[in-house]
């Protein structure tokens, strides 16, 4: 990029600078529109129920209150939902480990049927969730896993795209180090745990962040599998809150902010890794 600028003739510079400013301004205007819903959510979450119904609306909360957030835990059961959500997120890290193992198996071993099995894994990405939704529910119901935590997490345990990314990354790991470890007498499993996983830190980090975000946001399976409010996740609980308090927008915004803000912080903190993940995937 630098090269292009230095090679440009000097006379083009003012016009180029004007275009740069124009691009910046367009991006800023639309960027404000992108974050506006979040800003409005946060501001509204701290307003009182009376203030939020006022027209014209106030921008800054007049009487700054955290009452809405307390009510999430006293009137609603957000403590339980939070616990369940964190538990699901924790479980999904087991799935992450399984994906890493499978990615390694496909990347570094030659065995019969490897190509075909890998294609099969990729093909599962094409199956729409609407087709599997009902039969998976019936299968889980058949083995009495509906309305259990295990039933909620199992269907989303493995991700074909995750396996694909792990395979892509792990096939670039140097063969020599693995051979040396084997010569030292390490088993394949120790090789995986003590050499391959530490060397795969970049992809593990990205996948861990994405797994956390996915687990935190999980909605459809908890909604289908959990009949009991004790098993609700934050998103299902928020859906319930919206249905029960249809006009209390301050409370709704507090619930939404409670779900969105932690993910935003994590995302902004790790944004470079997440965004670069798509370069690993090789989609160019």
């Amino acid at each position, binding site marked *: 990029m630098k090269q292009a600028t230095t090679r440009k003739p000097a006379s083009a510079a003012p016009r180029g600078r004007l275009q740069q400013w124009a691009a910046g301004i367009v*991006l800023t205007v639309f960027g404000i529109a992108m974050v506006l819903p979040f800003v409005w959510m946060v501001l*509204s979450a701290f307003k009182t129920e009376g203030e939020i119904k006022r027209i014209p609306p106030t921008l800054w909360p007049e009487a700054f209150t955290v009452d809405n957030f307390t009510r999430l835990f006293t009137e609603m059961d957000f403590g339980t939902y939070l616990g369940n959500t964190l538990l699901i997120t924790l479980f999904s890290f087991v799935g992450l480990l399984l994906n890493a193992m499978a990615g390694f*198996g496909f990347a570094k071993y030659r065995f019969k049927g490897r190509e075909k099995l890998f294609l099969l*894994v990729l093909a599962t990405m094409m199956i*729409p969730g609407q087709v*599997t*939704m*009902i039969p998976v529910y019936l299968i889980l119901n058949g083995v009495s896993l509906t309305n259990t935590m295990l039933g909620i997490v199992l269907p989303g345990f493995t991700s074909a795209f995750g396996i694909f990314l792990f395979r892509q990354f792990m096939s670039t790991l140097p063969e020599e180090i693995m051979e040396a470890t084997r010569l030292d007498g390490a088993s394949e499993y120790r090789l995986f745990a003590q050499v391959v996983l530490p060397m795969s830190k970049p992809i593990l980090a990205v996948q861990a962040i994405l797994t956390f975000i996915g687990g935190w946001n999980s909605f459809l399976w908890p909604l289908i599998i959990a009949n009991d409010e004790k098993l609700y996740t934050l998103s299902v609980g928020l859906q319930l809150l919206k249905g029960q308090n249809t006009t209390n927008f301050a409370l709704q915004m507090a619930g939404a902010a409670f779900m969105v803000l932690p993910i935003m912080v994590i*995302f902004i903190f790790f944004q470079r890794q997440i965004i670069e993940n798509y370069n690993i995937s090789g989609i*160019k």
Partner: protein
Amino acid sequence: MKGSSKMAPYVFIGPTLLLLAVFSLLPILVALGISLTDMDLAGLADYSSISFVGLANYADVLGDPVFLLALRNTLFYVVIGVPLVIACSLGVALLIQFGRSRLFKVFRVVYYLPSVTNVVAVAVVWSYLYNPGIGLFNYILTSIGFDKVPWLTEPTIAKLSLILLALWRSIGLNMIIFIAALQGIDRSYYEAAQLDGASGWQQLTRITLPMMRFAIFFVTITTMIGWLQFFEEPFVMTQGGPLNGTVSASLFIYQNGFQYSHFGYAAAGSFVLFFLIIAVTMVQLRLQRKQAEE
């Protein structure tokens, strides 16, 4: 030692393959099976009460006015949503990549932000923004002299409102894919073009866009499949209303399966949708191949 290393690959891939078989492949067979039966809530409790009905579910669902409306709505979402998503994410990616200042990197975060947030939470926020009485959007419109818009209460406008929300959520991811593709273009093409006196516009249409053909194709296919399965936005915001105006094929399947417990009927609907997705993908692949040959 030898034995353990022969087994190792199967131990590594075994658990995942088992899970994928049980939760992705087996379900297709189960769905196909129950789509030929009248399975409902009674059948769930007592398998012997289920009876084989042949293709009756398929005939019924294809004659169901709500399903046909759902298909028309889905088509509406695809036809309007897909080009919008591609144009906006490509536009943003080009503008961000055009910028020389480091500040432009901040925009990547800003535009990506909606993609990582929870769909229920953002739907709750947007429902408030769309509220006809005290929503922010109508307040802004009336204060600059426009009429109030019935964002979620008029069938066609409600569809557009859901598209706007989904567009806002999907710009980020596709923008990242486009930026990765832009970074992969060799700078020397541009240097050569500049030496020949090509304008910025010519460089865009003659170098950038042709070089990004694969990325555009990839985003088109994934976006199209995604919009054919459009579900969460209408589910959380409108439940398919007003007057089934926003019901999508996916939402129809969910409602029939889990709200009315017509499992056989819903499974038949899901195969119609699956078939549509395959057909659309095939057409896309063929078009791409034809284009590549030219």
